[in-house]
């Protein structure tokens, strides 16, 4: 009897690992399979069209994961995360185009570039926390966006920068090799997932969560909340740069939108939709958002919409409007997002108390404010 329950517990403990490995194996085999999901995927899974869409989904899932590390584990609401994604994409593009280095050193340069920018901007932005932190990161990202748009000799300005393909190995170029790019982005997603998992379960992640909950207590224990936050911030930024690198290779080019505040907001929508504080939620959010964006754009151009009267046609033909409204509804009525809601339901069945990650952040915010108000 007892051995049975421990065995059951063992399975429960290893279940996520087994499911994860099986899922990755399944995803890796998709280019070899002929599955069709009409309405969701444009073509059967072995065709380049679907593989490119799925790759894009995985790039954004990786980006959302890195943002979840920042917001979910670190409790930092940043509005400048796109800066590091753009640093990865543009860094690789510039390294290949202007330094003329081969692909892999180029990737390395892009990641180092992202890290340096994150260190400099993070160190300054962390002088403040909470909402002011959000505003400051937004300002930095905006400065990056302006730099990209202005210096068109280096970044291509508004037209964007295309990948200098002569320095990229042949197996990553062209529609024929979409499946190689697909495997590459899958690998990026797995790497990003493993790093976030490692950070979350390490001492660093523990400290980051402690800092999020009660900064003062961490300081009283003789530890430095500033340093913890900065490390988490930089790790998340480097992961975002990695996603940017994958984006650059996948799209064989990048546009200024990759550094814009719009993109940061898009990432935020993905993470909140999926569920803040859940790694699998971020992945679900990233994939779901990208698919929805794609499908709604197709819908917007369809004849069924064009035939509607104006007051219905205009909102329905704007995918971003629909996604924005969906986001508002999720925040107001489903604060845990998809993952949080499922998790809360499971916990309730087990009789545990559940509290959403966003609500916890609010509590921490409150706690941080309280002593100031008493003093005043």
């Amino acid at each position, binding site marked *: 009897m007892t051995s049975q329950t421990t065995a059951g517990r063992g399975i429960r403990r290893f279940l996520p690992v087994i499911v994860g490995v099986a899922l990755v194996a399944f995803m890796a085999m998709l280019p070899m399979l002929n599955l069709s999901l009409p309405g969701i995927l444009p073509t059967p899974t072995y065709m380049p069209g679907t593989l490119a869409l799925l790759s894009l989904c995985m790039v954004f899932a990786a980006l959302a994961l890195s943002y979840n590390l920042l917001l979910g584990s670190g409790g930092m609401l940043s509005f400048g995360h796109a800066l590091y994604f753009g640093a990865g994409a543009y860094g690789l593009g510039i390294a290949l185009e202007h330094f003329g280095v081969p692909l892999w050193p180029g990737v390395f340069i892009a990641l180092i570039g992202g890290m340096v920018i994150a260190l400099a901007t993070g160190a300054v932005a962390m002088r403040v926390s909470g909402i002011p932190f959000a505003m400051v990161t937004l300002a930095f990202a905006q400065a990056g966006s302006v*730099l990209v748009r202005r210096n068109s000799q280096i970044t291509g300005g508004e037209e964007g920068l295309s990948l200098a393909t002569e320095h990229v190995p042949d197996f990553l170029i062209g529609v024929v090799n979409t499946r190689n790019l697909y495997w590459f982005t899958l690998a990026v997603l797995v790497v990003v997932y493993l790093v976030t998992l490692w950070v979350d379960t390490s001492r660093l992640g523990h400290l980051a969560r402690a800092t999020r909950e009660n900064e003062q207590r961490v300081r009283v224990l003789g530890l430095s909340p500033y340093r913890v936050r900065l490390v988490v911030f930089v790790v998340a930024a480097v992961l975002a740069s990695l996603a940017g690198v994958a984006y650059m290779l996948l799209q064989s080019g990048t546009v200024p939108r990759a550094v814009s505040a719009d993109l940061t907001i898009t990432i935020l929508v993905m993470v909140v939709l999926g569920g803040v504080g859940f790694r699998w939620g971020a992945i679900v959010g990233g994939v779901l958002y990208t698919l929805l964006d794609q499908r709604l754009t197709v819908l917007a151009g369809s004849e069924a919409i064009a035939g509607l009267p104006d007051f219905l046609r205009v909102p329905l033909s704007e995918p971003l409007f629909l996604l924005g409204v969906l986001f508002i509804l999720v925040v107001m009525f489903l604060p845990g997002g998809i993952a949080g809601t499922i998790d809360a339901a499971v916990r309730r069945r087990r009789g545990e108390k559940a509290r959403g990650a966003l609500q916890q952040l609010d509590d921490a915010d409150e706690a941080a404010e309280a002593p100031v108000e008493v003093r005043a």
Partner: protein
Amino acid sequence: MSTLVLTLITGVGLGALYFLVASGLSLIYGLMHVLNFAHGAFLTLSAFMGWMVAQALGTDSWGSFLMSLLVGAAVGAVFATLTELVLIRPLYERHIEQVLVTVGLSFAAVALFEGIWGTDPIHISGPPWLRQTTEVLGARIPNTYWVLMIAAVLVLAGLVLFLKKTRYGMIIRAGVENRAMVTALGIDVRRSFTLVFAIGGAAAGIGGVLAMHYSTFVSAHLGATLLIFAFIVTVVGGLGSLTGAAVASVVVAVLQQFANFYLGGTGDFIVVILLAVVLLVRPSGLLGRKA
């Protein structure tokens, strides 16, 4: 000399525009601790509505210009009030979600505006006087800057009078200072939340119509660019401080204009560096309370 005067005065004029946007943001943050991302959307909608009114009444006359300003202010106030009542109020005291909701609203609103008025900027024309220049100490100052300054001074004076002389102004000031105490005294602070949103929306609406004349076009992204500078201004000035916002608007804009003239168009960049310096030296902003 004349370039110096020109840079200085246009800087102050641009600062006036920043102040119109930042004043509402700062008041809202000071009282409710909500960072209002939708402020840009208030501004853009007001600009579009002001443009439509001006189109209907004839763009050349001063009457239609004033009318478009009034309509802009009213639209901004109504939009802001609705936002507060429908989106912000149900999430009482949950600051992060409140920010997220305004983010979603700005996201959706910009897309909707693009759907209604198209993605291309619409060029506008106002009273002919606005396109002329006035000579001050040898510098030819475009007249839009004077209008911006007059509007900002009027709004600032109105706000100060309202905050100092009226009962609601007093409640708002007390609420910024210590909200828990105001609530404990049996005053319903929530009504003043709506009021602050309406005032901020009206100021942003005036700012929107004037920003349209300043940049001579209106587009769905008009608000987004200004909003970022308004954020910088509120952080530099000290969150929740109206005087801080006024001072910082002028400092930021003058610095920006000087950098644009003398340092080869690096204005936007210099402003961000100023923000970084202020944060390093004085994280609570120029006139912010020490936390």
